[in-house]
């Protein structure tokens, strides 16, 4: 017993020693001629599937930029901080690399909400492509947040517009029933107000089936949707592993697969792939091109992967999540480049934010970058932080996605009105309370 006690104390002392010896604070240093770019990543847990692809796509693009000499000679050096899509860990990551952030991209809407106050105070832009706060399209109210491409409200109106197209006109939506199955969080709940207004405008009916995190158990919801509610269409707003669950359930309850339309965050091969042929004919939204048929993706393959510097399994290059990462990389690098050009080195969060507001990715610029067709044109300003974009729809044939629609725009007037309303409510809720 005595010996065991000693041993135990030795282990305790060891743990304590490590705790003291390993300084918590990040030691990453930014050397001359480098841009240190900390990255929040999700490599573990139920949401790692698509997220790892997005991370790798960014890193491969940075590698490509570095191999071509960097941004005006500055090399991008990144360091990862794993946060498992969890809010407390995201806050810890943020504090660990505080003062070193150039742009924060957690790829997690809940994390964006929690970080909002801190990034605004520290003047670092936090982005979430096709996510985050929908009302942060308003750059004046949210100077340090941005949805970049297709905010959730734009996505919701565009998806309903697509259903209208399938029915042969928005007026045909009258009397139809749309079931909405979603994660019960900041991400899955954002489309609510849009569905309410659209339902009023076009006379359809919608109902929510909320699934709590991580939403891997969905059978009761699907039986309800297919047998009792008898929905004409089902719109899904899931993420990570929960994206693959509906397909087995749909097959079980015998619901037509082509009437299930997933959100663009369920539109990656990693999401649908596990269901394979079972998910044939299902449709999901997307906001960018798929495949390898873009100069920039080919360049990454030819240069980065040939040199053995790739950050992903080569089979993932060209997949939806991967391309999303490359697009993110292009936007971040473009913001850094603009920031450097306008404000000079060394870069900080504010300069990159200013650079972000100068982004002008028009046809000519996209052609230079080799990203024509990969991403929509993006032009940002102080007032507009992006988000009012169209969606594409893609069909799964059992092994891969093919795009089956044209760009379907959002209901601009409706989304803009909601952004203005919501931004106003935010200003009122957070305005300084009178001193007491």
């Amino acid at each position, binding site marked *: 017993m005595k010996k065991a*006690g000693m041993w*135990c*104390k030795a*282990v*305790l002392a060891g743990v304590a020693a*490590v*705790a003291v010896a*390993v300084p*918590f*604070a990040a*030691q990453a240093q930014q050397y001359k001629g480098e841009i240190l770019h900390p990255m929040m*990543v999700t*490599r*573990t847990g139920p949401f790692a599937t698509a997220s*790892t692809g997005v991370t790798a796509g960014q890193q491969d693009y940075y590698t490509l930029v570095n191999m071509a000499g960097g941004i005006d000679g500055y090399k991008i050096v990144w360091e*990862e901080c*794993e946060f498992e899509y969890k*809010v*407390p*860990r995201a*806050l*810890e990551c*943020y*504090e*660990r690399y*505080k003062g070193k952030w150039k742009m924060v991209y957690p790829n997690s809407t*809940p994390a964006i*909400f*929690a970080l*909002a*106050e*801190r990034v605004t*105070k520290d003047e670092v832009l936090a982005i979430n492509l096709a996510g985050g*706060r929908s009302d942060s399209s308003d750059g004046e109210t949210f100077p340090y947040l941005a949805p970049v491409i297709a905010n959730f409200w734009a996505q919701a109106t565009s998806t309903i517009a697509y259903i209208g197209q399938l029915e042969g006109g928005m007026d045909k939506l009258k009397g139809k029933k749309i079931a909405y199955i979603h994660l*019960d*969080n*900041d991400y899955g*709940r*954002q*489309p*609510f*107000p849009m569905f309410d207004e659209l339902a009023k405008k076009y006379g359809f009916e919608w109902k929510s089936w*909320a699934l*709590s*995190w991580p939403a891997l158990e969905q059978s009761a919801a699907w039986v309800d949707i297919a047998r009792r509610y008898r929905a004409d269409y089902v719109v899904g707003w899931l993420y990570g592993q929960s994206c693959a669950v509906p397909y087995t359930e749909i097959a079980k309850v015998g619901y037509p697969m082509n009437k299930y339309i997933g959100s663009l965050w369920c539109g990656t091969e990693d999401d649908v792939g596990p269901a394979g042929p079972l998910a044939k004919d299902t449709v999901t939204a997307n906001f960018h091109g798929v495949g390898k048929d873009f100069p920039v993706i080919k360049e990454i393959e030819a240069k980065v992967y040939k040199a053995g510097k790739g950050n992903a399994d080569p089979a993932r290059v060209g997949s939806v999540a991967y391309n999303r990462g490359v697009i993110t990389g292009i936007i971040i690098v473009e913001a850094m480049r603009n920031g450097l050009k306008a404000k000079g080195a060394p870069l900080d969060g504010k300069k990159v934010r200013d650079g972000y507001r100068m982004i002008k990715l028009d046809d000519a610029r996209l052609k230079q970058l080799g990203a024509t067709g990969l991403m929509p044109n993006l032009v940002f300003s102080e007032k507009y932080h992006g988000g009012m974009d169209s969606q594409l729809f893609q069909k799964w044939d059992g092994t891969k996605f093919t795009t089956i629609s044209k760009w379907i725009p959002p209901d601009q007037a409706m989304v803009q009105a909601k952004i203005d309303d919501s931004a106003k409510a*935010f200003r009122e*809720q*957070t*305005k*300084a*309370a*009178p*001193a*007491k």
Partner: protein
Amino acid sequence: MLAMAVAAPFLLSEYWIKAILIPTIIFGLSALGLNIVSGYAGLISMGQAAFMALGAFSAVIAYGRFGVPVPLAILLGGTVAALVGVVVGTPSLRIKGLYLMVATLASQFIIIWALQRVPWTGSGSFATLNTPPVRIAGFDFSTPTAKYYLVLVVVAVMTLFGWNLVRSRIGRAWMALREHDIAASIMGVSMLRYKLLAFLVSSFYAGVAGSLVVFGWTGAASVQEYELDVSIKILGMIIIGGLGSVLGSFLGAAFILLLPILIAVAMQRVAALTGGGTVSVDVLANAEHVVFGALILFFLIREPQGLAKLWFGLAGWVDRRTGTFNATKGGRK
């Protein structure tokens, strides 16, 4: 220990204050609340995170919408949670053990569900409410140090209160109920009164902890942060830290919250030492969970009564060697 806590902002960097100390003592407070109901009174509760959410939302609505001063808003957060806690605690009069766990589990879901769907809460489609800048009597609590002291004062007062409470007549009644509730009630300990009181105090602590999350840590009340896994984590904190121990609640909170971060950082450093690239980043990220799980097993096998017991053992050992500590006499917090 209190002196160390007070001096912390002068010794440690902002990272330690904002990312390590503040969350640890807030969750320590919530764990202490759970320890009162589970560790002392022997009633398992799985709804601690939901009570925190109640506190967080009550406090942010009171302060942000109605201009209630922050100290009162914190108190209100605790009170609202406490009142709901009493209602949730009523089944404990009839059932216990696993059955009670399921009953409190239901409360976790119902409370979160209600917070999201009652339009009045204003959480609406974002499920999140931000707080205005925190000011008390004209003083601006925006620096990490100010926030830390705000949290520390509340936590210290409530810890002292809890510490005395469990050693009082009430605490002894709880322990009697825990050991054998029928025997205790025959001896004159009112089950109705003390079981509900345990839930009341426990959820009050959770509510205050929740409001501190808003005012002292994240600056927002967000439903997402109080899901079931948080309740399970808090339960894990008191089991690792030590059931029926005030100190254990805080040690357990530190263990559950900080160890994963420590492991991740340590592994990153070690991997960097070898020049990087030897281990893939994916393996590294997943290894964190394996190591963390192994450590939980290790500590529970080594000391089933929790970290608090280990701490007192260690302090006693140092005491015998140096004669400077007086921890073994039990007078040390």
